[in-house]
């Protein structure tokens, strides 16, 4: 009949489409395509290009040729590069530990029954909301060698006689930039951990209390294990953000005094863009990848072990 005839004729012309519709693999690939293209164009290609540039002597305005590991060889013998590696590791470690400790503490406080709870939670987010460059400029004034508000107040109280050399002395400068980074990074850790805390069922605490657990035991054996998955995620991100920090250093010290606060990211910019040596700048950026991978692997395999999370031992 007419109906069958139509079906018969369309079957031949759309058979490919139809076969695709019925094939789970084909459809799967089709639906993956947009995401795959996005990833390839915006992530894989730039990353690949960056890695490739690290193996060339490309300069701005002049295409480079392949030079193998020469950039890395030069960096290996470059004291400023190693200083920046040291600074970056120090900066990331100290800032991340502080951000985690203070952030967790803040999250626990905010999880208690507080008056004006919503207000406090909103306030805590402020440092995260302010654009980094603006908060960096504010810190720049706070740390100014002559006009620091901190020095001024301490001098008025009579605790110190001269202004503190915040950004001039290597140790002070490192501590100052870390403090600014911690100030900015705490809200992210605190708010995310707070969200994690609220997913923990109150009945677990009730059961623990009935069993006679102290508040430390409740934290150690209930809160902490249940929070580790989110801690792993938060700290991975926090470490990545800290490790690749740029704006804060660029505004506050531009890597000074005498490169004491140069991070790998700022050195990469200084050599690659200001200095015009794209190849070497890229090599420094690529040298950051092993550290970042290590941080990610640590959090995945270290902090996300199930049995450990459930309070047992491996």
């Amino acid at each position: 009949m007419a109906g069958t005839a139509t079906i018969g004729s369309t079957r031949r012309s759309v058979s490919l489409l139809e076969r695709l519709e019925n094939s789970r693999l084909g459809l799967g690939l089709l639906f993956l395509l947009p995401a795959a293209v996005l990833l390839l164009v915006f992530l894989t290609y730039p990353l690949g290009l960056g890695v490739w540039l690290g193996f060339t002597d490309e300069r701005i305005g002049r295409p480079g040729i392949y030079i193998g590991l020469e950039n890395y060889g030069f960096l290996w013998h470059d004291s400023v590069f190693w200083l920046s590696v040291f600074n970056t590791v120090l900066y990331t470690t100290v800032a991340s530990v502080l951000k985690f400790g203070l952030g967790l503490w803040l999250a626990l406080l905010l999880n208690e029954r507080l008056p004006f709870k919503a207000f406090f939670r909103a306030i805590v987010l402020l440092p995260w909301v302010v654009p980094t460059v603006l908060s960096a400029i504010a810190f720049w004034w706070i740390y100014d060698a002559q006009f620091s508000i901190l020095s001024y107040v301490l001098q008025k109280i009579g605790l110190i006689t001269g202004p503190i050399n915040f950004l001039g002395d290597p140790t002070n400068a490192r501590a100052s930039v870390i403090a600014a980074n911690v100030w900015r990074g705490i809200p992210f850790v605190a708010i995310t951990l707070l969200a994690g805390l609220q997913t923990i069922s109150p009945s677990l605490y009730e059961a623990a209390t009935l069993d006679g657990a102290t508040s430390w035991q409740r934290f150690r054996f209930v809160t902490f294990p249940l929070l580790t998955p989110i801690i792993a995620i938060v700290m991975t991100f926090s470490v990545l953000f800290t490790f690749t920090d740029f704006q804060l250093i660029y505004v506050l010290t531009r890597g000074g005094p005498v490169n004491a606060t140069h991070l790998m990211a700022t050195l990469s910019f200084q050599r690659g863009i200001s200095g015009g040596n794209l190849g070497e700048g890229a090599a420094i950026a690529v040298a950051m990848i092993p550290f970042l991978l290590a941080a990610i692997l640590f959090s995945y395999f270290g902090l996300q072990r199930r049995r450990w999370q459930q309070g047992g031992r491996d």
Partner: protein
Amino acid sequence: MGFTRRDLLKTTAGASAGLMAPSLLTQRARAQDLSFKPEEGASLRLLRWSPFVKGDEEQWLANTKKFTEATGVEVRVDKESWEDIRPKAAVAANVGSGPDLMFVWFDDPHQYPDKLLDVSDLANYLGGKYGGWYDGPKSYATRDGQFVGLPLATIGNAIVYRDSWVKEAGFSEFPKTTDKFLELCQALQKSGHPVGFTHGHGVGDGNNYAHWLLWSHGGKMVDEKGTVTINSPETQKAIEYAMELYKTFIPGTEGWLDVNNNRAFLAGELSVIANGISAYYSAKNDPKLAEIAKDIRTTNLPVGPVGKPVELYQVTSAVIFKYTKYPNAAKAYLQFMFEEAQMSEWITKSSGYCCQTLKAFASNPVWTADPANAPYAKASETLRPNGYAGPLGYASAAVMADYVLVDMFAEAVTGQQTPQAAMERAEKRANRYYRV
């Protein structure tokens, strides 16, 4: 009217030269006439550094408007913070699209000379008409005898000091030699009005100070062939001098960026700084700082053992990218802006911030309008190119961008390294760039 754009350009040039009747300008003007006919429907985009003094920008825009009225060519003038110019220009050159013209800094034209339009015809015409280009700015804009840009201006740097405090310290006039200068700084420290020069990563001030220290004592980064010669007895002398001077500084100078010295000076914390004229003008234009402004004097940096003033300064050139669709319009624009009528007015309105690159403009009234302007008048004349005495290019630019010299002095004065070790480290770092 049967008036073409070409005629108009010629007449404006002629008329402006005519205004300076008794000068040497008129004699040559007619013989070396040159004009470019803008392409049909041309429009231009210029990217410049954000001005430090308002008058500079206002006059440049006013002159641009005159150009548009005369030729019908629209020119859009964008600005960027001066430190962002270098990467922007490099990317534009690399990618082959962006503004048609740009004001760039230092060795930039030497980093991608093949991407820049050869403007030798225009430069030779302007040089012939206006008494020639100063050697320093010219070297930044020429490559193998060809002009790849027009030297636009030198941003002078000079000592800015508080006259009453210097007198109080027992000096009737400001010292002219480095030895006497050290004595003054020591006296000022004793009287509670310390000095301060930037040892931090301040692009302008940090480099100006470090290069003055090195060059005034006869040290140099490289020789004529580009071999690194920073490790020398002269450099050692320079470092030792810097260490003595540093002892008289206000604390914190090793962490300073470009604005710290102005800020502390205007707050009355410092007696002597080295800076562009902007430090003086911000005091002069602020009623609250009238007292300080009256006390401010300027002078050139002291002369060291080499016996003549040598300084780095900040040098800017105007370049046209080869990729522009309207090379003739761009050349016509630059020609118009460099002609007497426009250039004179621009230098005047820049209040001494932009020093002329063409010798004929040295008689500009701005240099005598305020005694404080005078030290900035010779910036183009006494400047020594970056990476002296070697060739300009990638290596000289990279060494400066990596703060090799600034760090060398900072390492030594803060006691992190001995002078010898600081020199050796600088030598090693410089060699990484000059290896090619």
